[in-house]
């Protein structure tokens, strides 16, 4: 340190400092951008892509077109990324069983290896959101912050207790209990069907991790007030009170007016 401080008045010191500053800034910027792009970085092998291409041609191309360029019956998948494939195929929403208001969750049609190959193929067509890293879906974020983000961005459709809710014309936002952190993350970054996209500029990966933490926490905690009747609010609670509560009142009035033997 002493050697540096002695040389700080050297005529070239200012230039050296400037160079150092530029290097640090540039380096940090490069790191930051690679962090953003790291997810687009695929670990898929060429054979994954080739196998995925075959699976795609056999199972998806009817609607999504040859080369995933889309047709009248299905949208183009160029640029949707591996995350969209992993979500849609991994939750069984695709291949679609039938036309309806929205594709519904069902047992997955492809195993994990096949899902990965399909994702590899679609990701190879154009860059898009990748499957999230394990560090952002581990459920170890800040649940309180996640709850705040959830109530601002998600609760209006998915219900404050994440029990799901109705949309227009038969569409609905599904309940989130039992959905894996990976699928929740992928749904946020890709915006499947009528769900809006929540990209990393809207909710940071850290914020998404907090949301997943919150959802896992309310799921494992259960309802603090006992039976939540589906957490659907006045509909299920009202039904219960009108039937069970009135039933008890009627039973009591019958007992009150009956004669004792």
């Amino acid at each position, binding site marked *: 340190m002493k050697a540096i401080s002695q040389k700080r008045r050297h005529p070239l010191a200012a230039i050296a400092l400037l160079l150092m500053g530029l290097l640090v800034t540039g380096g940090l910027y490069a790191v930051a951008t690679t962090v953003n792009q790291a997810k687009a970085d695929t670990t898929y092998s060429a054979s994954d892509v080739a196998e995925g291409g075959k699976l795609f041609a056999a199972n998806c191309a009817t609607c999504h077109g040859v080369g995933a360029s889309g047709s009248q019956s299905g949208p183009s998948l160029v640029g949707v990324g591996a995350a969209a494939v992993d979500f849609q195929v991994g939750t069984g929403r695709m291949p679609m069983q039938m036309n309806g208001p929205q594709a519904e969750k069902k047992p997955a049609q492809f195993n994990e290896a096949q899902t990965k190959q399909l994702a590899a193929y679609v990701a190879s067509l154009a860059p898009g959101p990748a499957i999230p890293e394990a560090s952002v879906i581990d459920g170890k974020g800040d649940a309180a912050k996640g709850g705040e983000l959830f109530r601002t961005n998600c609760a209006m*459709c998915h219900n404050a207790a994440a029990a799901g809710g109705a949309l227009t014309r038969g569409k609905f936002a599904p309940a989130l209990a039992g959905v894996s952190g990976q699928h929740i993350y992928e749904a946020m970054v890709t915006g499947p069907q009528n769900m809006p996209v929540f*990209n990393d500029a809207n909710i940071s990966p850290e914020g998404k991790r907090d949301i997943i933490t919150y959802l896992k926490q309310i799921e494992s905690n259960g309802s603090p007030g006992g039976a939540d009747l589906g957490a659907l609010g006045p509909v299920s609670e009202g039904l219960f009170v009108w039937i069970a509560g009135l039933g008890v009142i009627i039973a009591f009035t019958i007992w009150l007016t009956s004669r004792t033997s």
Partner: protein
Amino acid sequence: MGNHSDGSPNHSGTVATAGQNEVEKFQDPGIPPHRLRLADTDPRAAKKAERQVALLFGISVVGTLIFLVSYFAIDLGNDSSIATIRLQNALLGIGTAFAMLGIGTGIVHWAKALMPDHEVSEERHAIRTEEDRQAAVRIVDDIVEETGIKRRPLIRNTLLGAVALAPLPALAIFGDLGPRPDFALAHTMWAPGPDGKLKRLARDPDGTPIKAADVTIGSAFHVIPEGLNELSEGKLNEKAKSVVLLMRLDPAELHPSPERIDWAYNGIVAYSKICTHVGCPVALYEQQTHHLLCPCHQSTFDLTQQCKVIFGPASRPLPQLPIAVDSEGYLVATSDFHEPVGPSYWEREQHVLIPNS
């Protein structure tokens, strides 16, 4: 014959009455014979009923004890788990239910099984006589006569006027009950600052500004005005008026009217989140149909038609916030909303006429 309105069953003009002229007089059946209960005749049954009543009261005592024990023995601190809270809630509820039900059912069972149950008939009171009625009418007539109100219309009319006017001061005083909102409902925080600085659109809840490039197609951002989080007072009131939903569509799908051509930026549009029906947050966005849905009464707004109401009870489109991009790439509001946000109120029509940008 022919008179249908006298209501007498013996003189109905339309119903054949042969052989029915002798109407049987309805006999008062009186009180049915008293039937004794088991407990009245059998001392053992009475003893059993007594024990049942005591048992019910005992259940009430146990319920109260459950309540007290669970209230004091289960200590809730800041680090209590949800399971502990749930256990205490359940025990408090069960305890209270047994405490109340035990007393109630015990008393009813006591009354039904053991207390005397002989029937009593209460005779009707005599109906008031015609003389009493006449006397009451006379009293009223006397009062009217002695006041002379019929003979002195001057007094009558001035009294009516005085009584009608007397409540008016109360109306004036009630007007002072609270602060008048004046133009508070017509303006939001989106208006540019006094120095002409345009307000940036910021994320709800953390308040960081949003770049146009951040909003990709299909995105929905929940937006608050820049500086809202820094307000020291009235933050919730300001937030309630100024929350905005920011969405990006394919610009070809937007069909702006000529005067709103420059209110959007590359397909990014901002609309008030406050429903024009009763003010719920319209935040359910379907990104494929471009419909905005209000969760309270299912009012549906079509984003591609400037948030026109296409279903439900809302009567006006959602107000649009004109936006642009500043020199640093952040989204800014170029003016306040051009009409008051949210549901109707009395002065709304006048406030629409006030240029509030």
